[in-house]
């Protein structure tokens, strides 16, 4: 009897006291998370003690003593692990930027073609999307790397592009840019961009106040061409090219010397990433264009805007609003997918850092955490940037 009473009392107390009912699950969740983290940390500590490893990031400054076959900054075995990490990170960013660039262009072309009134073109675009979207990216990457690029000719019979670039099984050789006073050139471009921003602000204000339009596109085109050109004429900037030249290494082995080399791994990765991601971007573009109602175009036309103005001032701003959020997602996916590089030995952050560096140091926890944190930061950076842009072009309701 007594027991029954207390139970009833307890449930009543529990039911009536909504505060506790709200807090109890939260406290339990918190306890569970804290317990899980504590349990894992404890185990990790025991395991590391047993194996005689200590936790720490001292390895960061130590000599890496391994080579990386493709690097944007100066690097060799005598540099530190930190430097190797930077090389890997830059390579990841490089392939992501190249991939995003080509995927966007291809995606827009395919997306627009998909809506073409030409039956053949829309069918070709549709089949392109269906084929490339439904095959795993890793498989496409292997196909480009192990099958397509391996079928290229040897350096001796390389495919020749106007005698300055050569495509062979060893990679693509392009002329190397040799700059003098490169920093002045960069400053001039930064100055041009800043002045263009000013021109746009001025043009907007002028239009708001007086209603007259400034040919801001032509002006900015002029600025971005003229300012860097001036640095060539009076700033002491000059540019020359170093062309790749075919050289006989031994009796049967030929190779190109000089120029800049784009390794086949980079080409395969960029091709696979952009061809795959383009299919998704194409679908976003199609949805965006279909999302602008016909009435908008007709209304703009009846206001007397020209076809170009309708496209630029009415259709595009609205279509972009639909296109950008899913496309951002695709850019993020592309960046994350670039980690597949490890499968074909392109020296990106996963291969250099989570692969070679981890083998050498044996510090699994630190290195995998750093790698994951890097990707998280990249993802968050891209999404913040895109959210900012998205907010800028969003409908401004009064």
């Amino acid at each position: 009897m007594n027991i029954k009473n207390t139970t009833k009392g307890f449930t009543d107390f529990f039911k009536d006291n909504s505060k506790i009912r709200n807090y109890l699950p939260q406290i339990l969740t918190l306890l569970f998370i804290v317990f899980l983290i504590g349990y894992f940390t404890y185990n990790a500590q025991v395991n590391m003690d047993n194996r005689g490893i200590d936790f720490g990031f001292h390895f960061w400054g130590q000599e890496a003593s391994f080579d990386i076959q493709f690097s944007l900054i100066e690097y060799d075995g005598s540099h530190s692990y930190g430097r190797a990490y930077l090389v890997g990170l830059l390579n990841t960013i490089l392939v992501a930027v190249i991939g995003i660039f080509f995927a966007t262009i291809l995606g827009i072309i395919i997306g627009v073609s998909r809506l073409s009134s030409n039956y053949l073109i829309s069918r070709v675009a549709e089949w392109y999307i269906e084929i490339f979207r439904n095959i795993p990216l890793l498989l496409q990457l292997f196909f480009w790397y192990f099958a397509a690029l391996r079928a290229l000719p040897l350096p001796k019979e390389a495919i020749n592009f106007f005698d300055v670039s050569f495509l062979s099984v060893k990679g693509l050789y392009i002329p190397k840019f040799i700059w003098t006073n490169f920093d002045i050139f960069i400053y001039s471009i930064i100055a041009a961009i800043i002045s263009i921003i000013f021109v746009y602000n001025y043009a907007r204000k002028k239009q708001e106040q007086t209603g007259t339009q400034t040919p801001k596109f032509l002006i900015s085109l002029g600025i971005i061409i003229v300012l860097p050109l001036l640095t060539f004429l009076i700033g002491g900037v000059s540019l020359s090219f170093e062309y790749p030249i075919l050289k006989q290494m031994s009796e049967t082995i030929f190779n190109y010397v000089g120029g800049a080399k784009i390794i086949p791994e980079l080409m395969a990765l960029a091709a696979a990433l952009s061809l795959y991601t383009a299919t998704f971007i194409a679908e976003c573009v199609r949805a965006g264009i279909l999302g602008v109602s016909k009435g908008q175009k007709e209304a703009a036309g009846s206001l007397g805007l020209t076809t170009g103005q309708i496209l630029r001032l009415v259709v595009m701003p609205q279509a972009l609003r639909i296109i950008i959020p899913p496309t951002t997602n695709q850019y993020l996916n592309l960046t994350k997918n670039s980690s597949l590089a490890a499968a074909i030995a392109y020296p990106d952050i996963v291969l250099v850092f989570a692969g070679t560096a981890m083998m050498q140091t044996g510090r699994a926890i630190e290195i995998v955490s750093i790698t994951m944190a890097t990707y998280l930061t990249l993802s968050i950076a891209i999404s913040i940037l895109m959210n900012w842009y998205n907010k800028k072009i969003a409908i401004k309701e009064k």
Partner: protein
Amino acid sequence: MIKKINILGTPTQDKLNLFVPMGIFFIILGFLDVILNAHFKINLTSFLPIWLNYFAPLIFGFLGLHYIRIEFSGIKILDNLNKNINSNGFNALLTLLILFVLIQNIPPLLNWLFFDADFIGTSKEECSREGACWIFVNVWLKRFIYGLYPNAEIWRINLSFLLLIGFIIAGFLVPVKAKKYIIIFLLFVFPFIAMNLISGGNFGLEWVETAAWGGLSLTFIISIFALLFCFPIGMFLALGRRSSAPIIRYSSIGFIEFWRGVPLITVLFMASVMFPMFLPDGTYMDKLVRVIIAITLFEAAYMAEVIRGGLQALPRGQYDAGKSLGMGYWRMHLLVILPQALKLVIPGVANTFLALVKDTPLILVVGLLELVGMIDMAKSNPDWLGFATEGYIFAGVVFWIICFNMSRYSQRLERRYKTDR
């Protein structure tokens, strides 16, 4: 008479009899030039300067299409043709380019794939090397499907998948009342029966270690298990993200955003090299199990976002109605909200599953060999060097058939569930 026929003018309906034959003649000339050039090494227009020679078929075709572009010609085929592929000069040019590229590339491709290819045989020497060597795929097919699973035991994998298909078909055939039990059995009992059947170790079945599992069957095993477990986890995460309790909400957001922010490859690295460090000393967890857990958590985060979309799409009135009936949180969600929300997100779930299937080949980086991994292994076998292309094309076709049908199915579901809203 000559003055009346303006050759370059706009073709009109009254001169139909002149323009149509002329147009057809030019089109045939253009196509003939391409076909002879590409497949018979005959150049009809070799007398022209080289730059003109190169573009001759395009110019012929363009002229031809220009002549047959007649509005309201009264000939049905011609009108359809003009409307669909020949509406203006630019479209005509694109049409020609596409057709010429197809004519040049399709026959050699078909030759390589089928007509010159070798299908029957047992060794690489039987391949003529003029076309594809499908003997490679033929010989390795068993490995591609079952991995390194012992030949004598393959019936166990077959039986598991046959049982699965059988139960699914039974689920469609039995009356609605019994359906529930079959679904519960399939979700909660069958996976463990199948796992036991495939891994063995008891009931007189020989133990097959997971390192021997592989090929296409491993793709299915991983996908099915990951889907099964990621669904409930994703549901809880979605509910957690919409919870009013801050600790639950923020931990759900943190969990979801963490998994969505990192690539699967690093997750797999974590499962294979980092996770064993977090287990108590002396315990061992099988690599495949670790990988399945990692993929499950990874996909659960995506699943949570899909389900959240469904929860958000439900009008507030549904929540209010549930509450006004005196339902508690769980009863309201189980009986009112989730049944409706889940119905909405079926296409999204199908898409997530599709992404999951496409992601499975990645397990290759931690040493588990499913289909793509097995092809990687086969192509580096010293007896079978140089057949990478055939292998990848085979794997590509297999994955394409699976994924294409799944995406078509999800599109059909999408359409079906759109109508009743």
